[in-house]
């Protein structure tokens, strides 16, 4: 286990260079470069605000950062899941030539997606800062362990999806459907308190690990409060389960992956 992690660390120059290359080639030949990844969540937020603010009767200054943080986090989850499906195929030629820990290929995917997530999060923080003034700094600092948790969950998801898609080729279609459903049962567009008169649905939505992760991000960012103990412990549990699932998948398939590629 420690040997595996130190081997990943030994190859750090390899995967960081690949992540840098991925980010660069994504924005090559575009004038505003990195701006594209800022433009997407902002444009979505503007459009959805215009439509949903009157519908939900929400003030823009409150709803916009709520939406932006939700969409950015969901963008990260979608990226690790859908790109994670292809991570081992993307690294196939390396896998065929050089024995290296398989976890570095989903790590590459996760770090690329994480970069965009951080950009989106930074915009949300700046937006809240401009509109509502400087938030509660200790609460904002709680975002640091949350980011670490998100990174681990994202990496684990990418590992699991990568393995699943190599073993069963239709995993990616299946996961598309699952993610579509999850999008609506996760409080991205709506607040959970709107479900107050539907307690059973609210209970179900609150159980969703992505809802927990969202709360961990939003509570300090939007309301300047530390996340609730319930959210923190459920978040930690999510992290442990995700890492355990990924470790199991790797333990089982690390050596045999080459036979499936």
């Amino acid at each position, binding site marked *: 286990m420690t040997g595996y992690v130190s081997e990943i660390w030994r190859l750090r120059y390899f995967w960081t*260079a690949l992540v840098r290359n991925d980010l660069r080639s994504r924005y*090559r030949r575009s004038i505003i470069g990195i701006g594209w990844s800022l433009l997407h969540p902002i444009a979505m937020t503007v459009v959805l605000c215009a439509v949903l603010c009157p519908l939900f009767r929400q003030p823009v200054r409150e709803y916009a950062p709520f939406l932006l943080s939700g969409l950015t986090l969901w963008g990260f989850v979608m990226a690790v899941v859908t790109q994670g499906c292809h991570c081992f195929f993307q690294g196939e030629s*390396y*896998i065929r030539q050089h*024995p290296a820990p398989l976890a570095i290929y989903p790590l590459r995917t996760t770090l690329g997606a994480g970069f965009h997530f951080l950009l989106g999060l930074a915009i949300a923080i700046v937006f809240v800062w401009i509109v509502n003034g400087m938030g509660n700094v200790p609460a904002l600092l709680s975002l640091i362990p949350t980011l670490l948790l998100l990174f681990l969950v994202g990496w684990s998801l990418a590992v699991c999806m990568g393995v699943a898609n190599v073993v069963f*080729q239709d995993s990616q279609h299946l996961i598309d459907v699952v993610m579509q459903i999850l999008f609506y049962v996760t409080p991205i567009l709506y607040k959970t308190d709107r479900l107050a008169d539907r307690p059973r649905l609210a209970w179900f939505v609150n159980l969703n690990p992505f809802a927990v992760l969202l709360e961990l991000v939003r509570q300090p960012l939007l309301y300047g409060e530390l996340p609730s103990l319930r959210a923190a412990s459920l978040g930690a549990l999510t992290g442990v389960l995700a890492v355990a699932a990924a470790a199991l998948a790797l333990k089982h398939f690390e050596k045999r992956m*080459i036979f499936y590629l």
Partner: protein
Amino acid sequence: MSLIQLNDVGLRFRVRRFGRISLKEYLLQGVFRRSKQSTFEVQALENIDLTIAEGDRLGIIGHNGAGKSTLLKLLAGIYPPTAGRRQVHGRISALFDIALGFEQEASGWDNIMYRGYLQGETPRSIRAKMQPIADFSELGDFLNMPVRYYSAGMMVRLAFSIATAIEPEILIIDEVLSAGDMAFQSKARERMQTLMSSARAVIVVSHDLHSLELLCDQVLWLDHGKVRLTGPTKEVIAAYKQQVEEGSQRRAA
């Protein structure tokens, strides 16, 4: 002391008749228990015993599909043995499928860096090697271009130059001697000879019996995944040639 030891090693592939299986098929088969055999097994290697010691120069010969490349990949740690034991003491550098594995959008220079890092270089150690690698490849300004625009020959040049810019301990080679155009081939051959003389042990697969005679002191003849004969280069190659001739005579008759 032995650097690599294989004890009774076997490798069995499961090949799917219709490509990869889908989750849907898997579940349906599980539910209906129809014993539709959608996979069949290939015994790629069987009962291989092999010891590579300090200073050994081993050649591997055999027909196409005899399992030569598979054996090399197993030695290099890419395939795990499905039977027996594989023990390695030392760092293995392998040269096979060398034209594979470039980042298509990245320039030649960047790809030199990535491959170097994968082979365990650090930014500091790769810096000194970049220029010699570039010089050896003779690609000049093309190195600033994305690899996507390279011809097959250019890719081979680049890959060979990167892969051989190492100080190998145990060197494993799969017929890379036929890389690139004529001028590059003779250069490549020279580079291979220096590499092979500096390595503590060399294992090479080739169809070029003549160069094997020059390079190797031991030869292993692989036939349908099993060791047919192993011993001093001259004897094994003579036996192999005889078998090939007999085969062609039988076909002619």
